[in-house]
């Protein structure tokens, strides 16, 4: 009795405690299950069941700006206008100035019929009244219960507000993100454009989409009966706007070059033309102009083949513009100097049987290396090229970027390259590689070669994108390859001096001279393959590339024409080159040279 009496309450207490603990444990398990394990399911379910609203918060696609920060592409909204045909066909009740329904003589409310309303809509959208009337009439005829039809797409905010002011209950408006390009076709070839669904199709819009694209967010909240947000119920996951993409392009310079190349291309009756302006010290491209250029505001206005950049996607055998590479190679590996000379006929049959011609007939003379470049003699460059073995020449061309693509990583950009490895070069190729044949390059690669020579032998990666500034202010600069020392500074200086003599003593001297400035450069009249193993007759891809001021190089300018027909050789490029370089020097306030080009001997 005493044991039962003393034990029983304690036992009961223990049992009760255990039961309580078990119950608590069960609750805890369930709590964790609800609050932690299945939390997200319950939240979404609660939002589905509750009188909540979920709104997608649209992030804005980032702007594209030029080197000065001028906006080249920005995001805006346009609107799609929809209509409820069933309601629209019934018309609306006529109201007087106080908003009261006007009743007719029979006591029934007077209505304004649909055709009258359509006229009001048409007056705003610019469509014809018949057109708008028909949209509803046809739709109702096809399906009397239809509740949606399209009145107009992509109308401006102004039109949207005017339509909204008509106060027609059956009109609906959907905002559609859209792109606006304030400068039109300026740099349109570089910027690219979006399709009507907002997907990037071309240019940096597509290449840099990861920088520009926005991440949508959501806003959920519960609403009272009158549509007002119930305070404290909002859950916001903010949208992240796209980053601002800065290009290296200078918009004003780009416009000038586009205008210039368009005028000159039509003047020389070329298929198309292009101009590249590259900064010597950095490899940044300041202008990348070509004909024809798309207006990204209205890509449909351009022919489909004109909507992308030809200049970035075209590769060709560069011809004479690559002769300076042979000069640099034989200076570094063949012991030559600008004074070394060879006996140059205008046509030579080499020991291995290869036949090389100069473009013009001339008397046989002893030409210096400088003379070979100034006269652009294929025979002279072939003879100098013999001083070094094919593998070395191949290595130098490769170091100068042949076959290596560019850092632009442009979509569809050809990497170019050699038609054969040096050990497989045939007798003719053995020589033609000394003057820019048997391999292909892009225009950007040609500009980079001259940037390398002008920059003391160091190639900076070609660059079109300056940076991406993310919405939170983080600045991301593109991953670029390291600068490459291609040739020694002394070699670059010597080649540079010879290129100055091309401009000072060549046939083009008078046509390209800009008063007060020392300039250096080279012409190229490249043959164009006819697709059948030969070259097109009398049609060339002409170029003129150079830099200024020669004593302190700042900018490389490359001009190209595809198949000019008024003047077929690189002489067609003289006026465009001079105008382009003049504008670059004036635009960047580059001081005239205070010295003259030292004239080097051309013959020995």
């Amino acid at each position: 009795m005493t044991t039962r009496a003393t034990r029983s309450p304690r036992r009961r207490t223990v049992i009760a405690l255990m039961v309580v603990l078990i119950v608590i444990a069960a609750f805890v398990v369930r709590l964790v299950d609800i609050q932690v394990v299945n939390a997200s399911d319950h939240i979404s379910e609660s939002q589905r069941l509750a009188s909540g609203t979920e709104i997608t918060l649209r992030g804005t696609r980032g702007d594209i700006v030029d080197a000065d920060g001028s906006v080249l592409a920005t995001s805006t909204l346009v609107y799609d206008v929809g209509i409820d045909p069933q309601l629209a066909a019934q018309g609306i009740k006529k109201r007087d100035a106080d908003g009261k329904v006007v009743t007719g003589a029979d006591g029934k409310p007077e209505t304004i019929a649909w055709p009258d309303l359509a006229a009001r809509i048409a007056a705003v959208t610019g469509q014809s009244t018949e057109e708008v009337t028909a949209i509803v009439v046809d739709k109702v005829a096809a399906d009397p219960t239809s509740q949606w039809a399209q009145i107009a797409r992509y109308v401006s905010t102004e039109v949207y507000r005017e339509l909204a002011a008509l106060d027609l209950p059956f009109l609906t408006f959907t905002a559609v993100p859209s792109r606006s390009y304030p400068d039109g076709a300026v740099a349109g070839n570089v910027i690219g454009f979006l399709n009507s669904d907002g997907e990037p199709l071309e240019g940096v819009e597509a290449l840099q989409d990861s920088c520009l694209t926005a991440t949508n967010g959501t806003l959920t909240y519960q609403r009272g009966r009158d549509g007002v947000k119930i305070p404290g119920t909002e859950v916001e996951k903010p949208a992240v706007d796209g980053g601002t993409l800065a290009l290296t392009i200078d918009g004003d310079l780009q416009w000038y070059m586009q205008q210039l190349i368009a005028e000159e291309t039509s003047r020389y009756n070329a298929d198309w033309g292009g101009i590249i302006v590259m900064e010597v010290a950095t490899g940044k491209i300041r202008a990348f102009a070509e004909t024809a250029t798309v207006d990204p505001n209205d890509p449909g206005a351009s022919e489909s083949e004109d909507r992308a950049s030809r200049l970035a996607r075209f590769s060709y055998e560069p011809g004479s513009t690559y002769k300076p590479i042979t000069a640099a190679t034989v200076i570094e590996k063949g012991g030559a100097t600008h004074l070394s000379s060879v006996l140059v006929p205008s046509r030579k049959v080499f020991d291995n049987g290869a036949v090389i011609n100069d473009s013009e007939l001339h008397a046989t003379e002893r030409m210096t290396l400088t003379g070979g470049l100034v006269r652009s003699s294929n025979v002279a460059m072939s003879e100098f090229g013999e001083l070094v073995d094919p593998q070395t020449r191949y290595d130098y061309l490769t170091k100068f970027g042949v076959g290596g693509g560019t850092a632009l990583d442009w979509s569809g950009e050809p990497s170019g390259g050699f038609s054969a490895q040096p050990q497989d070069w045939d007798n003719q190729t053995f020589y033609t590689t000394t003057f820019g044949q048997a391999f292909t390059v892009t225009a950007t690669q040609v500009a980079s070669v001259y940037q390398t020579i002008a920059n003391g032998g160091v190639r900076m990666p070609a660059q079109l994108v300056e940076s991406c500034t993310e919405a939170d202010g983080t600045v991301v600069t593109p991953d670029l390859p390291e600068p490459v020392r291609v040739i020694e500074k002394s070699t670059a200086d010597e080649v540079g001096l010879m290129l100055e003599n091309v401009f000072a003593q060549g046939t083009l001297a008078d046509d390209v001279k800009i008063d007060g400035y020392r300039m250096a450069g080279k012409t190229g009249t490249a043959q164009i393959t006819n697709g059948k193993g030969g070259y097109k007759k009398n049609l060339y891809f002409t170029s003129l590339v150079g830099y200024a001021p020669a004593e302190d190089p700042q900018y490389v300018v490359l001009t190209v024409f595809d198949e000019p027909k008024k003047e077929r050789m690189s002489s067609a490029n003289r006026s465009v080159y001079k105008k382009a370089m003049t504008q670059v020097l004036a635009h960047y306030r580059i001081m005239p040279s205070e010295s003259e080009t030292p004239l080097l001997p051309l013959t020995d």
Partner: protein
Amino acid sequence: MSASALGTDVLSSALPWSAPARSEDQDRRLHAVGSGAHTKRPTLMYGLAAVAGALAIAGAQMGLSILTTQGSYELKELTSQQRTVEWQKQILQDDVAGLSSPQYLAANAAALGMVTGQPPSYLRLSDGEVIGSGKAASSTSSVQALKKAAVTNSLVSGVPLVTDPDSSLDAGVAADTEALIDPAVPLAVADGLPTPKTH
């Protein structure tokens, strides 16, 4: 209060609830706890205080709730104002879009007779020396920004130039071509014949 009334020691005044129980212990060992007239008043006081507090809290909460609701109506009003202003901003932006584009500015400059593309010369202030060719600029522009405008911009196509309202980036050319194609059609005169204004 009750302790001093019953003449017990001063310490017990700190224990007002136990004091009456202890004094009655001497009479009976067990009995129901009496609730004297003196103990009723404080209980009522506290009860009232508690109820008043609860009412105050409820009132304050209701007040706050009314304020937040009011605030959310204000917010709605302001949000709709903001939206209207944003629409206006968008409309204005659409209106001026493209007016700052280089081709429009250059066409305006060209309409004023300005030329571009001349080799620069510089005057050094320290010694007054002219650096560069020092030649006078030519009167012809290196590019024809208006007559041969080649860089299109659909945002300003047909927008009259500020410096020459009769021409625009592309319409000027279009008007000429039209006249060439069909010279029989006379140009429409909308605002009467232009007459010189003399005073």
